[in-house]
C-alpha cells in the first residue's frame, strides 16, 4: 500500500486540532507579524492516524524481530520505562523550574550518577551529553581542558585512534582541535601495543580505544595501554559503545580508563526511536573530573543542587555543552532499567550478550568465515572470504536477509576486515530466536555457495521497496517536498 506524502493528502482547509476562538486582543508584534499562516497542509485526526500507522508498517523494529547490528546494541525496550518517563512529575517539568520544585528530578539524576559511577568504577560522570558522539566530545573536551590546565595545549595535539574505530572517534578528535594518527591492529584483531607505544610522545594528547573493540574482542592489553599513555602524559579515552558486553563483569575504572561515554540507548535500553534521541553520559577519572561540564547535580545534605556556573568543585569546568541538563527522559528510562535488573541482572546482561554472540559465532562458522579466531565478546565478526567466487557480496547477502524477515547485520564495518559482517544479537534474544536466525542464515549461505545468485542480486524482493538509488539521491538532492505546479496552489 502506497502512502502519499502529507503534502499530497493533507488539506489547507481542515485540521486535526480544534482551538478556542481568539479574543482579538491587540497585537504586540510590532512589524514582525506575518500576513499569512505558513503554507502547510493538515490532516484531520483520522487521516493523521492512518497516515502514520501505515507509514509505521513499512518499518522493521526490535519488537518485530532480531536486529543483529554490531556496535548498536538493539535490545528489548521495556515499556515500564516509557511509562515512568511519562509521569507528569518528569515529563511536565520545566528545565528552569525553581530548584526546590524539582528535588525529585535532581535526586533521580543523582541516583543515576551513582549507578553509572559504580558500574564503571569511575569517580565522576557528566550527564549532559545528548548522545554517544556528544559524550565522546565531552570526554575529549575534558582531556583538552586538562591539557590546557597543564599549559600543554600547543604541543599535545595528536590523538591515536585505531583503524578499526567508529567514525565518530576521529571526527570528535578533530572537532576538539586535535589531529588524528591511526593505530595499526594486530593479526588477532586488537590494538598493536608495541606499535602504539612507538607512536607515543610528548605531542600525544590521548588514545581513543573502543573496548570491547569493534571486532567484538576485548583488548587484552588494555592496562598496559593505559599505563603507557599515562606515562607519556596523555589520557585514555574509551569508546563505550560496546559496554553492553562487560556491564557488571568488568569496570573501565579498574582498567585505567580516563573517560568513557555510555550510550544509554544501547546498554541501558532507552529506545533508538529510528535514530534518536540518544543520551551519552560520560564517566571521568579523578584526573579529568575537575574539568567536567556544567550543569551538574550535587547533593548537599538532604538537598539536591544544580550547579549552573563555574563555581566550587566546578570552578575549572570546561563549560556548558548544551542548554539545560541532558536527556532527562532517557535518565528516567535508564534508571528504571537498572533498578529492574539490579547488580545481579546487569551482570547476567553482560554474560548472556556474550554467550548469545558466541553461540551465533559458532553456529554460523559452519558456513561463514570468522573475522578473527577464538571467542568473541558480545558481537561476532565475519569476513566475506567464504563468499569468494560465489558472485554474491556482503551487501547482497545482507539484503537477502531482509527477505528472510531479518534486519541485516552491520556491513563493511569495521574496515579492517574484508566485507565485514558484524553481528550483535544482544541478551534479549531467546535461544529459539537465535536458532531461527542461524538456521536462516546458514540456509542463505548454502544457497549462495550453491550458486543461487538470483536470490541475492536484486534482493530484497519482499520488502516495501527494492534497492533504492542512493546515487541519484546524492547527485540530485531532493530534500523537501515542492509544490508540483503553480496551479495546485490556487486551491488555497
Amino acid at each position, binding site marked *: 500500500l502506497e502512502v502519499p*506524502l*502529507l503534502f499530497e493528502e493533507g488539506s489547507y482547509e481542515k*485540521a*486535526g*486540532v480544534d*482551538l478556542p476562538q481568539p479574543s482579538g486582543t491587540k497585537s504586540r508584534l*510590532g512589524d514582525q507579524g506575518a500576513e499569512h499562516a505558513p503554507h*502547510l*497542509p493538515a490532516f484531520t*485526526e483520522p487521516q*493523521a492516524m492512518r497516515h502514520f500507522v501505515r507509514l509505521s508498517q*513499512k518499518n*522493521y*523494529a526490535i519488537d*518485530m524481530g532480531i536486529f543483529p*547490528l554490531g556496535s548498536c546494541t538493539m535490545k*528489548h525496550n521495556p515499556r*515500564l520505562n516509557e511509562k515512568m*518517563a511519562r509521569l507528569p512529575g*518528569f515529563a*511536565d517539568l*520545566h528545565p*528552569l*523550574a*525553581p530548584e*526546590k520544585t524539582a528535588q*525529585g528530578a535532581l535526586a533521580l539524576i543523582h541516583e543515576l550518577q551513582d549507578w553509572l559511577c559504580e558500574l564503571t568504577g569511575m569517580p565522576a560522570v557528566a550527564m549532559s551529553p545528548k548522545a554517544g558522539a*556528544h559524550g565522546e566530545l565531552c570526554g575529549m573536551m575534558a582531556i583538552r581542558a586538562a591539557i590546557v590546565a597543564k599549559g600543554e595545549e600547543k604541543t599535545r595535539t595528536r590523538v591515536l585512534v585505531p583503524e578499526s574505530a567508529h567514525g*565518530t572517534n576521529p*571526527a570528535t578528535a*578533530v*572537532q*576538539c582541535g586535535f589531529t588524528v594518527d591511526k593505530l595499526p591492529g594486530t593479526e588477532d584483531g586488537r590494538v598493536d601495543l608495541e606499535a602504539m607505544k612507538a607512536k607515543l610522545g610528548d605531542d600525544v594528547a590521548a588514545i581513543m580505544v573502543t573496548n570491547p573493540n569493534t571486532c567484538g574482542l576485548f583488548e587484552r592489553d*588494555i592496562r598496559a595501554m593505559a599505563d603507557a599513555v599515562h606515562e607519556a602524559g596523555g589520557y585514555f579515552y574509551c569508546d563505550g559503545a560496546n559496554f553492553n558486553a562487560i556491564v557488571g563483569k568488568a569496570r573501565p575504572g579498574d582498567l585505567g580508563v580516563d573517560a568513557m561515554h555510555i550510550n544509554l540507548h544501547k546498554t541501558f535500553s532507552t529506545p533508538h*526511536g529510528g*535514530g534518536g534521541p540518544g543520551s551519552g553520559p560520560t564517566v571521568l577519572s579523578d584526573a579529568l573530573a575537575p574539568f567536567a*561540564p556544567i550543569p551538574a547535580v550535587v547533593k548537599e545534605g538532604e538537598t539536591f543542587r544544580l550547579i*549552573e556556573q563555574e563555581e566550587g568543585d566546578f570552578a575549572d569546568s570546561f*563549560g*556548558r*555543552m548544551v542548554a*539545560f541538563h541532558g536527556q532527562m527522559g532517557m535518565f528516567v528510562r535508564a534508571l528504571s532499567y537498572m*533498578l*529492574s535488573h539490579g547488580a545481579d541482572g546487569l551482570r547476567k546482561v553482560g*554474560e548472556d550478550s556474550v*554467550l548469545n554472540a*558466541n*553461540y551465533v559465532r*559458532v553456529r554460523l562458522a559452519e558456513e561463514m568465515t570468522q573475522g578473527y579466531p577464538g571467542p568473541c565478546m558480545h558481537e561476532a565478526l565475519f569476513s566475506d572470504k567464504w563468499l569468494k567466487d560465489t558472485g554474491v557480496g556482503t551487501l547482497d547477502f545482507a539484503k537477502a536477509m531482509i527477505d528472510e524477515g531479518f534486519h541485516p547485520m552491520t556491513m563493511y*564495518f569495521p574496515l579492517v576486515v574484508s566485507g565485514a559482517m558484524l553481528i550483535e544479537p544482544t*541478551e534479549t534474544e*531467546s*535461544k529459539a530466536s537465535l536458532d531461527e536466525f542461524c538456521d536462516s542464515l546458514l540456509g542463505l549461505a548454502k544457497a549462495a555457495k550453491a550458486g543461487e545468485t538470483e536470490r541475492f542480486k536484486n534482493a530484497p524482493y519482499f520488502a516495501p*521497496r527494492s534497492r*533504492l538509488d*542512493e546515487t541519484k539521491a546524492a547527485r540530485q*538532492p*531532493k*530534500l*523537501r517536498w515542492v509544490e508540483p505546479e503553480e496551479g495546485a496552489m490556487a486551491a488555497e
Partner: protein
Amino acid sequence: MRYLPLTDADRQAMLATVGVETIDDLFSDVPKDALNPDLKLPDHKGEFEVERHLSAYAKKNHAAGDGPFFAGCGAYRHHVPATVDHIIQRSEFLTAYTPYQPEIAQGTLQYLFEFQSQVAELTGMEVANASMYDGSTATAEAALMARRITKRNKVVMAGGLHPHYAEVVRTNEELIGDTVLQAPATPGAGAVLDMIDDETSCVIVQSPDVFGFLRDLEGITEKAHARGALVVAVVTEAVSLGLLKSPGSQGVDIVVGEGQSIGNALNFGGPYLGLFAARQKHIRHMPGRLCGETVDADGRRGFVLTLSTREQHIRRDKATSNICTNSGLCALAFTVHMSLMGGKGLREVATLSHESACKTADALEAIDGVEVLNDTFFNEFTVRLPKNASQVVDSLAEQGIIAGVPGGRLWPGREETENLLIIAATELTQDSDIKALASALRAAV
C-alpha cells in the same frame, strides 16, 4: 530477570555448543582481578517496586500542570494531542533503528522527509536537515558551518541570544581557537551591529530573543552580508513561526531552533529537538542527517539517507561534524503534531499564545513597581521588579505558582539582570492563572 529469555538449560546447552565450560571462560581476556567486581548496588526488583521507587521521585516535583505556570526561556508548555504520543509509541517507530536499510525503513524515512519539508517551510528556508540534539547544539553547529563556508574564525552573537546557547557556542568554538564575541545581554539593546567586521564568520541573532523582544533580522542581515558574514537566526520557541515573519523571508543564511514546543513535552530539558535549515547552496556544508527522495529499482518513489559523505561514518576525520544521532522520535512528534495543526492550526495556537501573553502583560503592568520592558513580544516578555526576581520566584513557587525565569538563573551573579523576570504564556494559560500570578506578584513586591 524478566528481560532475559535464556533459561539455565539454554545457557548450558549453548555453552556446550560454544565449547566452553563456564561463562567466564568467554571473559578470559579480562584481567582476572578486574573480573566480576563486587558492585555496591541492589539486586533486581520487580516492576511494581521500580514503579514505586520512581513515582516517589516524580511526586516530589511540582509539575507545570500542577498550577499557574509561566516559565519559558527555551522550553514551552503547549498542548500535545494524544494522537502524537500514541504514534511515537508505535513499536515500529519507537524500537526502529536508524534507517540505514531503506528498504525496510520507509516509515522513518518518509516522516523525516515530511519533517524536513515542514521545517523548511516554517523557517522560510530552502532545505532543512533531519534534526539535531537540540536548539543550543544546533546553534553551535551552525557557527561551525558558517566557519567552514566563510573560512573565517570570529563569531558574533547578539546580546539577546539565550545565555545557555551562547555558552554552548563558546565552548565549541573556543576549543578550536576561534574568537567569540557577544553583545551585552540587556533587554532591548542591539549593539551587535557594530561588532560585525570583515573577520566575522557569522552573526547569531535570536528572535524573539531571550527577553522576548522581536528582532529586525532584515537589518542585521543587510549589515552582515555587506561584510561577507553569514547570519544565523535562532528560534527557541518554534510556535512563534506560526505568527511571525519567517527568518528565511528576511534573508538569513541559516536558521536553527528548538523544536520542543511542537509535539514534545518539557521533560526537564531533554530530549529536545534541534531544527536546522539553510540555503540549498550550502547543503554540502550542513551537519547532521539528511533524508532525500529517490526511486527504487522498480522505479517507485522512495526515500534514503543521503549526502552521507559529509558524515563521520564515511568521512571520519574530515566529517562536517561528529554527530551520528538525530532526535528521530522527537522529530516524529513534531511532524505528527504539525500535521494535525497545519499552517492554519499553528497560526491559531500562536495567536492564542500571543493573546495569553498580552493579557498577562496587561495584568502585570497594572501592578505598582512592576515594569514591562518589551515594546514587542510574541509569547514571552520581561518585567523589572523592584527586588531580586529569584527570591520572588521562590516565594511564589511556595504558593504553587511558577512565575517565570528570573534573571539570576540565566546570568548568575550579574547585577543588571537580577531583578528581571522573564514570563511566558501559551494557549494553555488560563485567565485564572493570570489572575493568580498577578495577585501573588502584587503581594510579593
